Each structure stands twice: as structure tokens, then as C-alpha cells.
């Protein structure tokens, strides 16, 4: 069993009575921590008095490794940052390279990028919502969510051969064009998905147990969301309507018509529902992109094998499933980045765990961690 009792300290409360504060170590290897997260929880009975996440257990030095690889060789490294969302991790990095090296991406490649990114968003949210289900004991909801995710992962396998780490979006475009029949297969998936997503919403979020476990848990106010740099469903669940696809639009998103679901109460329940309704909006986006996409090249023409951007630095970001994911690249004119910095939304959102968990029980701590939806490849890099 991985919850160990580290120490037992006696403190005195205001009335002078001795109160035992228990310090419990949760993780890093634990089925409920969504990856390798260690949380040192100070408990008064079962109520969390202080929770401190300790990270770094998946730190592989990706930023340091990137300094020793060419711009193209860094793309597989970005796959392994947010490994539940490799498509948009590749895309954020490629946008930074294209900004730095002044590369124009052909229109068909932009549409393909949007389609795969939105598919990835649905897949990632299904992981997040499913994990919330598993956290609250709804294992069937987990499987329902993963069935939707499986359809998408199969599409990705048809597209680029991989189920998890794709290395598909490359600087200048994408690595290969859509295979024959892929568009029809994709259309079939996104036509069937909204009904299944609404069914999942009804069965999981409509269940009184899930509501009881998640409503009012881990409430994040809108001011705190902005002050603490929260982005993505964590911020939108608190009513902060910040979405880079609308507030700082990029790629072909200005041509596509979609809404951004925003929650009200900022609790774990609203964060989960925001993810689910975002997935339904993503289906709309994909259908429109599939209608608008035209034939054309999928890679920028005239791109050298070794990209040598001029010296300088550039930052570019996209709206990933977790929030605003950005890559800051510094170039010294050589074919390798001088410095790569990944602004990972999961790292920024995870800071909130200490604040959100205070006053809740240990079981709620797990639900809050799940609602923040961290992926530790991205948190630790």
C-alpha cells in the first residue's frame, strides 16, 4: 500500500486541547494521483489542513535535451511532454519554430492540424473525464469515456501509425497527407460522438453520486484563476472565458464557428462538464474543417532539411486540452535550438492544488487533483 504514515505531531488548538496532526505521504506511485505526483498532506482527522504537491518524478530534462538536437529532432521529444495530447504538443512547438524561421504553412496542413488537434482534445478530455469517473468510483463511466477515446486513437493509428506519441505535426506542415478514406472514417466518428458524449454527461454528471462527490469541491474563484495563471478548463470552470482560440486566434480558427463552454461555480463538477462540452464543440469544429478542407500540399515547399532560423527568440502558444501550451525558442543561427522552454498549463494549474484542497477530506483531494487534470510528462518535462 502506498500511503505511508510519516510522522505524528501533537499540536494544541485554541482551547488548549491537544490535537494530532497527521502527515501523510500520498504517492508518487499511486493509482489515484494521475501519474507520478507526490502529495504531502497534513491532516486533522480526515480534513486536509495543508497539501503540498511535490513534483519532479518524471523530470527527464527535455529542455536540456532539446539543446542538443536539430529542430526536427526535437519534435518526438515534444510528443512525450503531454503524452495524452501529442498532436497539440507537436503543434505548439512547430508554431514556435515557424514563427522563428518565418515558415509559411500551406492551408491544407493548417486544416489537418486543426482537425487532429481537436480530435486530440476530445481524446484528452475523455481521459480527464474518465479519470474523474474512476476517482469517484464510476468505473463504467471511465470505460464509456475510453470507448469514445478509442475511436479517435484508432483514427490516429490509421493516420500516422501510432496510438499515443505521433510525431505527426512537423515544422512546415504535417509529416504525411491524410490516407484515402480517412476523412470518411473521421466524419463517421465525429457524427457519432456528440450523442455518446451527451449520454456520458447524463450517465455520469447526471448521477447524484458524482454530483455529491464533485459539487462544491475544490472551488476556484475567477480572481484566483487569473492571479494564479490557470488556463484551460480549470479557468473556464470558474467562469473565466479565456480561450486562446478566441482571445488570441491562430491558424484557421477564425474561419470556424464554435462556442466556448464556461462553467459557473469553479468546482470540480463544473471543470469536468466544461471538458465534456468542449469535446462536443470540438466535434462541430472538426465537421466544419472537414467540409472546408481542400486539396493541396501538406508541407511548406522549399524547406531545408536542416532548419537554421536567424538568431533571436520567439514564443508561440496554442489552446491545448489543459490550457495555454506555449513554447519559447531561442536561436543562435545554428540548426539546434539554443534554449527551449515549454510553458506547460498543467504545471501552472497544479500550483493550485495546495489552495483548493484545504478544508476538504482526503478523498476530495483525489477528486480535486483529477479535476485539475495534470499530465506529469508536461508538468515535469
Amino acid at each position, binding site marked *: 500500500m502506498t500511503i505511508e504514515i510519516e510522522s505524528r505531531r501533537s499540536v494544541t488548538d485554541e482551547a488548549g486541547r491537544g490535537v494530532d496532526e497527521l502527515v501523510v505521504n500520498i504517492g508518487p506511485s499511486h493509482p489515484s494521483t494521475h501519474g507520478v505526483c507526490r502529495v504531502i498532506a497534513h491532516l486533522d482527522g480526515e480534513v486536509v489542513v495543508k497539501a503540498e504537491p511535490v513534483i519532479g518524478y518524471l523530470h527527464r530534462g527535455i529542455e536540456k535535451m532539446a539543446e542538443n538536437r536539430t529542430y526536427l529532432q526535437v519534435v518526438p521529444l515534444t510528443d512525450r511532454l503531454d503524452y495524452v495530447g501529442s498532436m497539440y504538443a507537436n503543434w505548439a512547438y512547430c508554431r514556435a519554430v515557424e514563427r522563428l524561421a518565418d515558415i509559411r504553412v500551406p492551408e491544407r496542413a493548417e486544416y489537418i492540424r486543426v482537425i487532429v488537434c481537436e480530435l486530440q482534445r476530445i481524446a484528452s478530455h475523455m481521459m480527464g473525464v474518465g479519470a474523474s469517473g474512476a476517482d469517484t468510483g464510476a468505473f463504467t463511466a471511465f470505460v464509456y469515456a475510453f470507448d469514445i477515446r478509442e475511436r479517435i486513437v484508432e483514427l490516429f493509428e490509421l493516420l500516422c501509425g501510432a496510438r499515443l506519441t505521433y510525431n505527426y505535426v512537423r515544422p512546415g506542415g504535417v509529416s504525411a497527407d491524410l490516407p484515402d478514406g480517412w476523412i470518411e472514417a473521421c466524419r463517421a466518428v465525429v457524427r457519432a460522438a456528440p450523442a455518446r458524449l451527451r449520454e456520458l454527461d447524463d450517465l455520469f454528471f447526471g448521477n447524484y453520486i458524482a454530483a455529491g462527490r464533485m459539487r462544491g469541491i475544490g472551488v476556484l474563484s475567477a480572481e484566483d484563476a487569473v*492571479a494564479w495563471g490557470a488556463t484551460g478548463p480549470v479557468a473556464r470552470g470558474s467562469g473565466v472565458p479565456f480561450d486562446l482560440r478566441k482571445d488570441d486566434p491562430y491558424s484557421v480558427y477564425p474561419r470556424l464557428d464554435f462556442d466556448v463552454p464556461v462553467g459557473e461555480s469553479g468546482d470540480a463538477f463544473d471543470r469536468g462538464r466544461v471538458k465534456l462540452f468542449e469535446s462536443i464543440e470540438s466535434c462541430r469544429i472538426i465537421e466544419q474543417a472537414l467540409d472546408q478542407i481542400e*486539396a493541396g500540399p501538406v508541407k511548406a515547399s522549399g524547406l531545408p532539411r536542416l532548419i537554421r532560423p536567424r538568431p533571436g527568440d520567439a514564443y508561440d502558444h496554442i489552446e491545448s486540452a489543459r490550457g495555454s501550451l506555449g513554447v519559447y525558442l531561442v536561436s543562435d543561427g545554428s540548426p539546434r535550438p539554443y534554449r527551449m522552454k515549454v510553458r506547460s498549463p498543467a504545471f501552472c494549474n497544479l500550483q493550485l492544488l495546495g489552495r483548493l484542497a484545504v478544508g476538504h477530506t482526503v478523498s476530495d483531494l483525489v477528486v480535486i487533483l483529477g479535476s485539475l487534470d495534470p499530465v506529469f510528462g508536461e508538468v515535469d518535462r
Partner: protein
Amino acid sequence: MSDLSAIPVPVPADAGSSLEVLREALCSVHPDLCPLFSIEFADSVLMVSRAQLHATAAKLKELGFERFGFVTAVDFGDDFELVYRLQSTRFGVGMSLKTEVPRDEPAIETITDLWPAANWHEREVYDLMGIEFIGHPDLRRILLPDDWVGHPLRKDYHDDDVIPRPDYI
């Protein structure tokens, strides 16, 4: 077959105008910051000295950059360049606020009082680059174990366990 004159990717639609709007607003409210502002790679950059950084960050926050992106450091040999990334909903753009700290005295005032979000980011810069943030509430290593020696992202970091990658190109 559509031709290649598609959306220019490095410059998002209307970015030119949003950056000019930002420049005008900055120059009218803070004329002293105007010469330090530049537009590079279709993005706004403000380069200030170490002593001015906290005050400039406060001014930018008031101007409309309510959102904190990240802080990072780049090792340029003689000095470290610190880059603070801010985002504004009002202007719809981000900004890189940069400063330099000398290598022999890598310390700077913290900005966690302006944006609590900077807490973990400053810890990460301290951990991997060794820059001290004066006034930080809890400055200790975050990604590496507490007993690690050295700051790996520095260019002169040496570790016997690191296997040098062969140069294929």
C-alpha cells in the same frame, strides 16, 4: 487546387494592428518605456534593466497584462537573460518582458507579490539555472531532488552521468 498564398502563419490575423495599439497605449501611459519596446518576430518585447523590472511589471499589470505566462532564463555566458511572458485580454496579445542578470551575481527581486502564479516558475528557474529570487516565499528546488548539486540548464553544467550525444550532422 488552392494556391500557396494561404494564411501567413507567423503573423496571426490582425496582429499588426493589435501590436500597434499596444505600442500606442504603452507610449502614451508610460513614455519612459517607449524606447525599450520593440516588435520582433511579430511579437512585443520590452527590455528593461534588472532594477527596473519589478516596477515595469507592475506598470504592465496595470496597463492590462493581467495574466502571467511564465518566467524563464537563458544562459548567455556572461549573463542570464530572464524572460517574463505576460498575456493581456485587453489587447489580445502577449508580451515578453526581458532583463539581464550578471552571471557572478544571479539574483533578482521576486514578482510573486504581483502574480502569485510566478511562485513555481521562479522555483523552477532557481532549480535549473541557479538564479535567486529575493523575497520569494518558498525558494527551493522543485523538479530535482533537494540534495542535487548544480544547475543543469546552465551551459557549463557538468555531470559524469551524462552521456554526450554523438554529432550526426
